[in-house]
């Protein structure tokens, strides 16, 4: 343990740091301190430069100009090793885990101690990790293979890594995106305990409420620059949102468009899974024309398999699916699409889009064989391009040309391509998974507006989201999925964060699911 330092003293700082990636200025002249024992939050739109700032502090990104200071003296981190040795630890936006190694091996990689040829210190590490697990009530099997863990458990492995090496400055890049409210609570509990023991915490999050609730000091970034600093107790949601975007954002208002004409009717739908436990367990519900049916749940509880079964990507082992009165249980994806079912996958880069394809190619997919885009097997390229250009116009996709590869678009614009394609197909039923993952406040508002408009025009929507705010803003009803089964279904006027959170955790108390 380093000797205690008086509070208010900066443990580390960025000094006039700038960094560009090609034409993109990810950071421009950014300076701030991280103080001993404080809980700091960093917020900003997509691409504001938050992750890059952390990368610089952690030795992963070299600044073009400016430098990092540790304990008041300039330091150059040649690699993450130096940062780790300086007592820094980081939970990255995307997990940095080795899927086929065990939990203990994941923790040990790079922290083994001893030379490269020394034996892996399994025994010593195990004792220490058991201690930590007990202290923080982690519930992790050290010998489990990481690929088999749930998202929440993977998150805990990441944090275990930091605790194992006694990190004194802890960076967390959007750690709560995939956790239940209860899991979030326990995460923040633990972070505050660490803080009490002298650690500094730096949190990046898009969830303004949790930032205000937990952080002491909030830094706001916009387009690579630091634009504001606020004390948590002296600000509110609206102010922060305004600071982030540079303008006021209006969330689209929910209108109730649901009718009583049933579009989708699911009865006892079951999808088998490994180890005999079904991934989707006798799910039944109806969705009406114009209705948005939300599905809440910790990711990994079967929502993906449910949507896949509805789309024909997964073969159900039991139950029936009726679409507009007609049974479609065994139909193919193509048949479902032809019948008017659309799908927006959460895996934007490899399922929602073909990243190396052009915008034109992507906006045609699923309807390439229709008379609009082809004749007797020959593509009508002109029609395809015109269609793409029309969508670029109406959906405000920022691109120099319709022939650009979608992989070159920014995340928000990529998602707009998906939305444009699916909405323009005028579906009768749309299956949507986490449409706003990694999307900033502005684009989120646009996408939400489009989904609401679509519902108004009579389309039924099944919306899977791990973001409760999003579900609450859009849904007419919300079903909670837990271990493949949908238990309670909450009508719009009975939506309650904690009741839903409890249902997401299996109805019991915090952390029960992973016991």
């Amino acid at each position, binding site marked *: 343990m380093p000797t205690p330092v008086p509070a208010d003293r900066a443990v580390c700082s960025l000094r006039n740091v700038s960094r560009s990636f090609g034409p993109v200025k990810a950071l421009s002249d950014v300076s701030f301190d991280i103080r001993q024992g404080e809980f700091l939050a960093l917020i900003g739109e997509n691409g504001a430069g938050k992750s890059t700032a952390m990368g610089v502090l*952690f*030795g*992963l990104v070299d600044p073009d100009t400016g430098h990092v200071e540790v304990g008041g003296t300039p330091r150059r981190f040649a*690699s*993450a*090793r*130096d*940062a*780790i*040795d300086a007592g820094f630890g*980081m939970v*990255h936006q995307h*997990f*940095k*885990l*080795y*899927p*086929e*190694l065990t939990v203990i*091996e994941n923790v*040990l*990689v*790079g*922290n*083994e101690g*001893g*030379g*490269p*040829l*020394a*034996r*892996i210190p399994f025994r010593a590490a195990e004792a220490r990790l058991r201690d930590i697990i007990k202290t923080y009530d982690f519930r992790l099997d050290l010998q489990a293979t990481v690929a088999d863990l749930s998202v929440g458990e993977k998150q805990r492995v990441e944090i275990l890594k930091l605790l194992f090496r006694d990190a004194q400055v802890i960076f967390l890049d959007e750690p709560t995106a995939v956790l239940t409210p209860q899991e979030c609570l326990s995460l923040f509990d633990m972070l505050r305990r660490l803080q009490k023991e002298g650690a500094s915490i730096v949190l990046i999050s898009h969830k303004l409420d949790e930032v205000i609730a937990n952080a002491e000091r909030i830094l706001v970034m916009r387009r690579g620059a630091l634009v504001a600093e606020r004390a948590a107790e002296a600000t509110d949601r609206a102010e922060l949102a305004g600071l982030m975007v540079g303008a006021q954002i209006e969330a689209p208002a929910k209108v109730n468009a649901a009718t009583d004409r049933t579009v989708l009717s699911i009865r006892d739908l079951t999808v088998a899974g*490994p*180890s*005999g436990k079904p991934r989707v367990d006798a799910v039944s519900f109806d969705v009406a024309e114009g209705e948005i049916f939300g599905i809440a749940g910790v990711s990994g509880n079967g929502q993906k398999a449910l949507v896949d079964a509805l789309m024909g990507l997964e073969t159900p082992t039991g139950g029936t699916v009726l679409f507009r009165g007609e049974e479609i249980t065994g139909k193919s994806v193509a048949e479902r699409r032809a019948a008017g079912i659309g799908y927006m996958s959460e895996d934007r880069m490899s399922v929602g889009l073909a990243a190396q394809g052009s915008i034109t190619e992507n906006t045609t997919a699923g309807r390439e064989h229709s008379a609009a885009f082809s004749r007797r097997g020959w593509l009508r390229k002109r029609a395809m391009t015109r269609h793409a250009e029309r969508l670029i116009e109406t959906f405000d996709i920022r691109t120099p040309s319709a022939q650009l590869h979608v992989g070159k678009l920014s995340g928000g614009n990529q998602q707009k391509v998906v939305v444009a394609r699916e909405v323009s197909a005028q579906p009768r039923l749309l299956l949507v998974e986490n449409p706003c993952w990694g999307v900033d406040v502005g684009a989120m508002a646009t996408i939400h507006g489009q989904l609401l408009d679509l519902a108004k025009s009579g389309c039924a929507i099944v919306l899977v989201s791990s973001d409760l705010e999003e579900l609450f803003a859009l849904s007419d009803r919300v079903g909670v999925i837990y271990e493949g089964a949908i238990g309670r279904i909450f009508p719009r006027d009975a939506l309650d964060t904690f009741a839903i959170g409890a249902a997401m955790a299996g109805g019991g108390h915090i952390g029960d699911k992973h016991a």
Partner: protein
Amino acid sequence: MLFDAALIDSVPRLVTPVLLAAIGGALCERSGVFNISLEGMMLVGAFAAVAGTFYTGSPLGGLTAALVAGAVFGLLFAFFSVWRKGDDIIVSIGINILAVGLTALLLRSLFGVSGQFDDPAIAALPNLDLGPVGDIPVLGSFLSGQSVLVWLAVALAFAVHHFLHHNNLGLRLRAAGQNAEALRTVGISPERIKTTALLACGALCALGGAQLSISNVTLFTEGMSAGRGWIALVIVMMCRGRLLWILLGALLFGFIDAMSVRLQGLGLPQQVTDALPYVLALLVLALSYRRRTRRAHAT
């Protein structure tokens, strides 16, 4: 007619070159390098072993030369693929061509011959005589009188297995194969790890080549690896880099190879016995994958 002492005796000799190369291939596979130039690296080793033995007069010199040459080729691979980010397959193709061309060229320029180089000065690797063990019927000739590399290869299979699972570097190597970027975030350069793996792979393949050229026979022929590196690659893919399986797989292939000699004696056409190992490999793969997928679905 099918089984006799000579069959048992020949299995270790046929297994060893393939096994050594496969261990090297496994290191690449586990560290996330798709190296299909085992064949070329083996050929280089076979040449260097003969040249080294010829110049130093001792097979030890040959082994050293093979190790160095193999390691150099491993480094070359690493430079173009790991550091210059070249495509593994194209780099492998380049390395294979280079091995064929360079060995033939050196054969001409160093020894003034082409096609083949043999000379009384090329001494064979010593064989380990296990004394009384050699008198055990059948098993005796299998165990005793084999070259030191045979035992080294088997020991290496276990040692590398142990190394991967119980040594820090082994852990990092497996980690590099799983998620190289994650490794970077703990301050370890995946490039270095992969380079190490390639270095070892080159050296191991070269040892396999040495077993061919200064133990199985004591001469060098152009192209004398004769497809054994490809067999090793198939074994690595089949066993997905798991060493104990690789040991088994190499034994199986060696046994089939030795058997194919006998099967000709039964009147099977030579082309059929030649195709046998590959067809068998396909069958084994089909069965094992079938089980694997069925387990994934059913359980």
